C-alpha cells in the first residue's frame, strides 16, 4: 500500500493541504493522483516507510482499506483481553 503526501500546497475542492500532510486515500481518482505525481505536487511512500493515518484508523476516518498496527503497539496501547 502507498501513502500519498503533499509537496508544497495542494487545494482539492474546499480542502487545503499543506506541505508534508497526507492526502486521504479515497479523495481523488487514480488519473488525478497520477497527474499530481507527475507534476511533483504529490509523492508516494511505501507503507513500511510512512504509514497512512487514514488507513490505520479506518473506523474513524472512513477509509475503505485498513492497515495493521505493529505487535508492540497493540500490546502497549490497546485494550488487553
Amino acid at each position, binding site marked *: 500500500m502507498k501513502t500519498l503526501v503533499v509537496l508544497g500546497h495542494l487545494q482539492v475542492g474546499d480542502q487545503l493541504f499543506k506541505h508534508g*500532510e497526507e492526502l486521504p486515500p479515497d479523495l481523488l481518482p487514480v488519473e488525478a493522483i497520477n497527474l499530481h505525481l507527475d507534476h511533483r505536487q504529490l509523492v508516494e511512500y511505501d507503507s513500511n*516507510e510512512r504509514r497512512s493515518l487514514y488507513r490505520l484508523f479506518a473506523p*474513524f476516518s472512513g477509509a475503505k482499506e485498513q492497515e495493521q498496527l505493529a505487535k508492540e503497539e497493540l500490546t502497549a496501547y490497546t*485494550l488487553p483481553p
Partner: protein
Amino acid sequence: MSHEPVITKHGPCFIPASAPNNSGKVDREVVAAASRKAAQRDLALMRALNSATPVVKPELVLRKPILREDYFEQATKLDEAIYRRGVAIDRDRLLELGREWFNQLLVADREARAFQRVIGTRRDLSSWPTVYLPFAQTGALSQIPVPPRKQYEQLYGINKEIDSIREVTGFVDLWKFGRAQPQAIQAITAFHDCFATLMLGQSMLKRISDYGRLRSRFFTGGHGAKAERFHQWLSAVDKGHTTIRFNNALQAAVFWLAGETSEPPDLLDLAREYSNTRVPSKADIKFAQAVLDGFLLNHKGWSLWQFVGRRTQALPYDQLLQICSGRLERRFRRVQFFHHEVEQCFWRPVGNHNELDLTAWRGFINRVVNDLRDCVSSLAALAVEESGATVTARFQNSLLCESEPNAQLVDAISEKLGAAFPRVAFKVTIEP
C-alpha cells in the same frame, strides 16, 4: 668400587626469554613483566586484607492493612463479577468521539510537520526509530543534560544508574531532547498522545459486544498511562455512570507505611511554592504532583529528574528539583527514614566493597506500593458494592460505578478505608 656421589649441577631457574646480552643488563620488557606481576600480587594481598565487611541486614517488618479474613476471596469474586459485567458503551458516541480525536490527530500531524528541519515528509511520526533518527543525526544526544559517567566511575562501577538515565528508549523519553529542539519535541509529543488515545479507542470499538458491553481484564485493577487514556473516552460510557477518584492514594499509602504523622502536603500549596506564583498553571500542578510522587517513591538526583520528566513530558530544571526534594525530605522525616531503613536491606557484598542492588530495591518499593494501592482500590470497590451501587471498572486510582453520585458512597468508602488503614486520610471525590 668407587663410592663417590654423583652431583648434577642445574642452571638458574629463571631464564630470560631474550638472549642474555653480554653487558649483563636485564631487558626492560622483562623488568616490566616482573613489576606487573609484583603489583598484581600486592593488589590481591590488599584485597584479601580489606574484604567487604559482612552486611548486617536488618529485619524488615512492613505494616500490613487490617483486613477481614475473607478479604482476598471477596476481592477475587468482585473482580470476576466486574469482568463479567463489562462497561456499557454507546457505540455511536464512541464513533463520534473517535472522529473528533482523528481530526485532532491530523491537526497535530500538520503542526509537527511544520518543523521541516527535523521532520521531513518521509518521517512516520508514529514510529519510534524514524522519529529518533533525525534527532540523533542533528546532535540532540549530545545535549542531554545528564553528564556521562567519568572514567573512575566506570572503573569502580559507581553510578551505574546514570547510563540508563542517559538512554532515550522511546516516546516516553522524547522530552530528553528538549534542549535541542523544544518546539518539535512538544509537537511530536502532542501527536503521539493523540495517536495512543486513538489506538485505545479503536480497540474499544472493535471489542464492544452485541449487547453494548465492553469486557476486559484491564477493568479489574488497570493502572498507568493507559488508565488515564481510558478517561478520555468516558463520555462514550452510557449515562448514569459515576467516577470515584482517590486523589492521594500514593501519598496516603506511603505515609501509612512510614508512620508519618505530619500534615499531608496540599498540592496547590506545593505548586505555588515551586512556581512562585499565586495562581499556578496546570503544568505547575502537574510538576508539583510529579515531584511529590518521586519523593514518596524515593527517587533522588538524576533518578528524580527522569521520573519527573517522564510524568510531565518536559525537561525539568535539575537544580529546582534538588531544592524541592530537599524541602520535602526535611518536612517528612519519617518517610525519609523509612526509605533509609528499606535501603539497608538491599546492600550486597561485591568484591571488596558493598553495593546497593538498585534494581531489586526499586522493584521492591514499587511492588509494595502497588499492592497497597490495589488494596485501596479493592476495598473501595467492595464498599461501593455493599452500599448498593454496581462497580463496572476498577482502576488503581479510580472506580467507575453504575449509580448517581451521592455523598453516602464517599462515607462508605472512607469508613472502609479508615478501618483498614487507621489514622490515614484518603481524599475520595465523586465526578458525575
